[in-house]
């Protein structure tokens, strides 16, 4: 009897350590980046296709650079001088972005009306020079003078932009799409998954290990990582699409107050349970002083955790955020 136990136990331990992991799908090209979906449980193809469909749809609706046949998207909206009928997603996305824009804590740090300024910066940096202050000032004024009106008639949604600024939903759209996907997973009891949209917007279920934790590394800080599950992880950093001109690093993230393409911090990661709000927070915190970030944490009852990196070191980490090193 003892002998049987002695043989069977190690075999059980060895066999149970073999994990079944569903391979990640091929990367999807959406939101001007790649989206990787990994399931650690069996998920039927209908749900997988529904998830891909919703991500593709929202990506097309929020495309800043190109029109898409058969739909009215952000490109059409930015180039229209009249009222447009749009889908419920685009309507809700614009309203959500504006609602975050008008939050008193974020009003100076999150602005979706800076599309023209972003393009002007991109053009200048492509030519290896810095955008002049007069152009910045003009484009910030243009953004302030632009507004959106919304109209809903039964199941039809209409939007109209007054002013010349372009709306850029880059700081919110991936989080918004992932929030919609999370709803599908919740409704279908899917718990073992991860989705990363670029390296900036991530949602995590549970991994198929006893702890269920995922190791989340940092591209530019390879020794540092976090162990997380069942949360959203939103990251903004100057390292993505950065450009150095005269020794100064410029990035795609604009400071909405100064209009400069430089940020106060090198990287901000926000961990919470809402990928949409997480994206907005990580974008906003890139230029927010630490005292204001702490104040926001208190006002939101510490419902999110923040990691701020600067000059290769941790500038601020929320209480309870367990940063690990290897």
């Amino acid at each position, binding site marked *: 009897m003892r*002998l049987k136990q*002695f*043989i069977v136990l*190690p075999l059980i331990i*060895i066999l149970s350590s073999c994990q079944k992991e569903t391979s990640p799908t*091929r*990367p*999807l*090209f959406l939101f*001007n*980046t*790649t989206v990787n979906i990994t399931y650690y449980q069996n998920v039927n193809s209908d749900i997988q296709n529904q998830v891909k469909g919703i991500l593709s749809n929202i990506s097309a609706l929020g495309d800043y650079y190109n029109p898409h046949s058969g739909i009215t998207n952000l490109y059409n909206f930015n180039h229209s001088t009249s009222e447009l009928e749009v889908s419920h997603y685009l309507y809700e996305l614009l309203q959500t972005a504006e609602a975050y824009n008008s939050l008193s804590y974020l009003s100076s740090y999150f602005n979706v009306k800076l599309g023209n300024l972003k393009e002007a910066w*991109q053009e200048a940096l*492509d030519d290896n020079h810095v955008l002049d202050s007069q152009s910045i000032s003009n484009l910030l004024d243009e953004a302030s003078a632009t507004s959106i009106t919304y109209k809903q008639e039964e199941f039809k949604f209409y939007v109209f932009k007054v002013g010349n600024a372009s709306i850029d939903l880059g700081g919110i759209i991936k989080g918004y799409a992932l929030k919609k996907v999370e709803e599908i997973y919740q409704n279908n009891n899917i718990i073992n998954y*991860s989705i*990363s949209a*670029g*390296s*900036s917007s*991530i949602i*995590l279920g549970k*991994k198929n290990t006893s702890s269920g934790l*995922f*190791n*989340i*590394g*940092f*591209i*530019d*800080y*390879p020794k540092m*990582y976090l162990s997380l599950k069942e949360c959203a*992880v939103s*990251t903004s*950093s100057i*390292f*993505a*699409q*950065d*450009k150095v001109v005269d020794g100064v690093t410029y990035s795609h993230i604009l400071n909405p107050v100064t209009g400069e393409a430089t940020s106060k911090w090198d*990287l901000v*990661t926000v961990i919470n349970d809402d990928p949409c709000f997480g994206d907005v927070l990580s974008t906003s915190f890139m230029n927010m002083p630490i005292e204001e970030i702490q104040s926001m944490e208190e006002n939101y009852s510490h419902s999110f955790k923040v990691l701020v990196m600067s000059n290769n070191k941790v500038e601020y980490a929320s209480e309870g955020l367990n940063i690990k090193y*290897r």
Partner: protein
Amino acid sequence: MKKKTLRNDLILIFSLLAIIIASIVAILLTRKTSGLTAKIYCQETLVKSIDLDKAKDEKYVIKGLHGDVIVHAKKGAIGVIEADCPHHDCVNVGYVYTTNRPIVCAYNAVYIEIVGGTTVNDIEVG
């Protein structure tokens, strides 16, 4: 009689342990831990797989969604050296040597990732 049974039991136990240990050692020895492979995708299709241990200054022209993306592979590293895209973010990434840093040319729907080696994180952010 009892002693003989015990001796047989011990022989069986040690034989099984020896088999288990030999299997684990064999798995560990045959596992590929240092080989890095670059995988190049275009519009979600794998178009090229390059063994970076064997790469010797090779250039590949990848037909992207809107134009060509010219990839240069050298021993242990890969990078985009030229691309028909507006901002050249993919070129600006430079050469990548590790599994945690993909190269994306969104305009041409080209994605390059390095796999293999000792990947320790499930997901990378940045």
